[in-house]
């Protein structure tokens, strides 16, 4: 037999039309339809397809019997298993919470010292806290709490407010500059009313603050004392726990180079730290509080 599949050349085919009763390859006859050369075989319906149809339909019918399936006007067929996806979700969540509750319930109390001194508890809880931090806080504060432009580092023990766990918990509950009625509030006012030249000298002064090469008797130093010390501390050392950062350490939120400080002075700053009370449970907030406090502690004192 030749290798051709041209219908006209196949044995038994009419050499002009290519029509033939039997397809020599499969041995089936054609249906007799012909669309410009396309024909169809009259193949018997394959048994396996019938079986497959039966199997899939049986699966469907069993599912309809067991599960909620067909609407019946105002209701639906509930299925023999009586499943309800709302209940299932609550149950599944409950099971997980039960596992966690053994240790998580400890964090319902805000006795931070006691919690922190329990090493076994910390070993169990801190890995969980790091995931909680990564899921909720890392987007702003960095994967490891290292901060970034506009978002303070939480690792360096240099605090806007305080590294004291009670204070951290307060920040987490109510946020900073949020809609929460008990929010912390801190604004760096704009000094756009000042002369540009004064702002420039101040900016230079602030940029030089960390290495201490400044003179508080200079015009810029006097400007600083008059305008800034009330919030940032006598010598810019911060620590007043009103949300104004120290300007003498190396940790920065926005930046302490001349250009960034110029921008800070021109437009003011009012960073927002969201309030978490509505989103995280009290235990979770306490867990994160301990985690953040330890992040700072691990870093030791700021220079």
């Amino acid at each position, binding site marked *: 037999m030749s*290798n051709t599949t041209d219908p006209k050349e196949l044995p038994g085919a009419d050499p002009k039309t290519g029509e033939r009763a039997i397809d020599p390859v499969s041995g089936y006859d054609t249906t007799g339809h012909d669309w410009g050369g396309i024909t169809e075989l009259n193949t018997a319906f394959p048994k396996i397809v019938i079986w497959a149809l039966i199997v899939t339909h049986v699966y469907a019918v069993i599912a309809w019997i067991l599960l909620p*399936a067909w609407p019946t006007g105002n209701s639906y067929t509930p299925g023999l298993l009586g499943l309800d996806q709302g209940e299932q979700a609550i149950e599944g969540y409950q099971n997980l919470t039960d596992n966690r509750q053994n240790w998580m319930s400890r964090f319902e109390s805000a006795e931070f010292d006691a919690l922190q001194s329990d090493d076994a508890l910390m070993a169990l809880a801190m890995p969980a806290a790091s995931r909680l931090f990564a899921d909720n806080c890392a987007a702003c504060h960095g994967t490891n709490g290292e901060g970034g432009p506009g978002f303070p580092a939480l690792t360096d023990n240099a605090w806007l407010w305080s590294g004291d766990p009670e204070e951290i918990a307060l920040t987490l509950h109510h946020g900073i500059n949020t809609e929460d009625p008990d929010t912390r509030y801190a604004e760096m006012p704009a000094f756009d009313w000042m002369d540009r030249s004064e702002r420039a000298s101040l900016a230079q002064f602030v940029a030089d603050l960390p290495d201490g090469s400044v003179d508080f008797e200079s015009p810029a130093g006097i400007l600083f004392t008059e305008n800034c010390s009330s919030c940032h501390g006598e010598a810019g050392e911060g620590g007043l726990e009103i949300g104004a950062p120290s300007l003498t350490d190396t940790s920065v939120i926005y930046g302490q180079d001349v250009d960034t400080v110029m921008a800070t002075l021109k437009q003011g700053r009012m960073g927002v730290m969201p309030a978490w009370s509505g989103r995280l449970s009290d235990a979770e907030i306490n867990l994160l509080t301990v985690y953040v406090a330890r992040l700072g502690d691990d870093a030791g004192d700021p220079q």
Partner: protein
Amino acid sequence: MTASLTVAERRIGLLISILLALMGLVMAAAAGHGVMSLHGFMALALGLGLAFILGGSLYEAEAPADRLSRYYDAPTRFGISMTLIWAMIGMAVGVWVAALLYWPEGTPAWPATSFGRLRPVHTTGIIFGFGGNALIATSFHVLQRTSRARLADSVSPWAVLIGYNLFCVWAVTGYMLGSTQSKEYAEAEWYADIWLVVIWVTYFVLYLRTLARRNEPHIYVANWYYLAFILVVAMLHIVNNLALPVQWTSAESFPIWAGVQDAMVQWWYGHNAVAFFLTSGFLGMLYYFLPVRSGRPIWSYRLSIVSFWGIVFFYIWVGSHHLHYTALPFWAQTLGMTFSIMLLVPSWASAGNAIATLNGAWHKVRDDATLRFMFVAAVFYGLSTFEGSFLAIRPVNSLSHYTDWTVGHVHSGTLGWVAMIVFGAIYTIVPQLSGKTDMASATAVEWHFWLAVSGTLIYVISMWNAGITQGLMWRAYEENGALSYSFVESVEAMAPYYLLRTIGGGLFLAGAVICAWNCRVTMRRAVGHATDRPLVAQPAE
């Protein structure tokens, strides 16, 4: 275009073009500013351009009188060109957004190029631009050949193709300017949707009129599939896009559906876009081009009938499998799941029928890259429909949903099945319409085939890995009930897969570019028309 029209037809075309220009002018003037006015200007420019071309040719030589004894292939040729242009645009944007997932810092500081705006440019460019043009162009070809009749008239095929492409351009430019209905695969705003309805009805009427003139006693199954595509897409498009414009002069609207009903309508539409846009029409393509290219009869007439009705009936039900474990009632999810399972057999029957059709032509599959495209398409059709039914099972879905597994599944369908059958069809049609037997470069077809297959495999396999990894990471808990991974860790774990996916997509794109080049060269070297003819010349109108 104009050379194939009579003077009377050119006059009608001129009139329609002027109306289009007027419509554009009214839109632009009424909206005054913003996306809608820009779209008005586009329509105005298109209408004026067409009027200019048609008006300028009013007194040129008439189309030859013997045209009525030939098939009308000029629109198909134009449609194929648009298919290839959209393929390159859509795939290039796809590769770019894939790269952005690996390299988000690469996003330019220009809002129009943000990921969120470019992603629908990719999906619309591919589904509607590439897929839609391929469907319309091949449907004209298949319809005429299997009816042994010329298209019912010469103006409406152009109206359909040009109008349809205007819709596509409106859609993608709108997204880039931030105009969207936020419905997947139905992002285009209300006036573009209305425009598409007008085009689609024209298309449907043209199809039916031509079918009615057929010189064959029976309607070939490919036409059934194309008709199902046209009819059901019209229904889906209208129902899902029902919306109230905020005002008649701007590109904003509110859907009339709300809440979980909206979600259900959206995914009823979304999945049936897969079914009737991305499956039914392409099955029509497969049912025509596979037997033509392989020279083999369709393996089983009965199977093709059962598959057709099975697919049409079962698909309509399955959209709710996109909403497992959501606010959608459990019973609706069960129905979506079970109908997805029952759908598997008709789907596989089609794939099996196609593959069995190749019995007796395997040596051609080996030697002919074009036929190999179709073979691979049938295999991927089988794979992705199996995967689809599998993913629709609720507990499986709880692992796969919201992961890149879904993305992998879609692309095993779109790259492996839809695009492969389109390329098979293109490589069959383009030489034929150019009066030739072969493409300009057979080597290029071979290269394209291997680029496409390797690109698809790399893409799909990396997304399977990515999706399963994500699913497992998200649901992993420690013994103490705490999550084992943060979300960010699951994102970081994606980096190698996203890189691989970009490479796979890049290979696929490279193949498409080669195809476009090859088609262009072949069309440029065209020597006359397709040689096959209708059974009876069409009476002049």
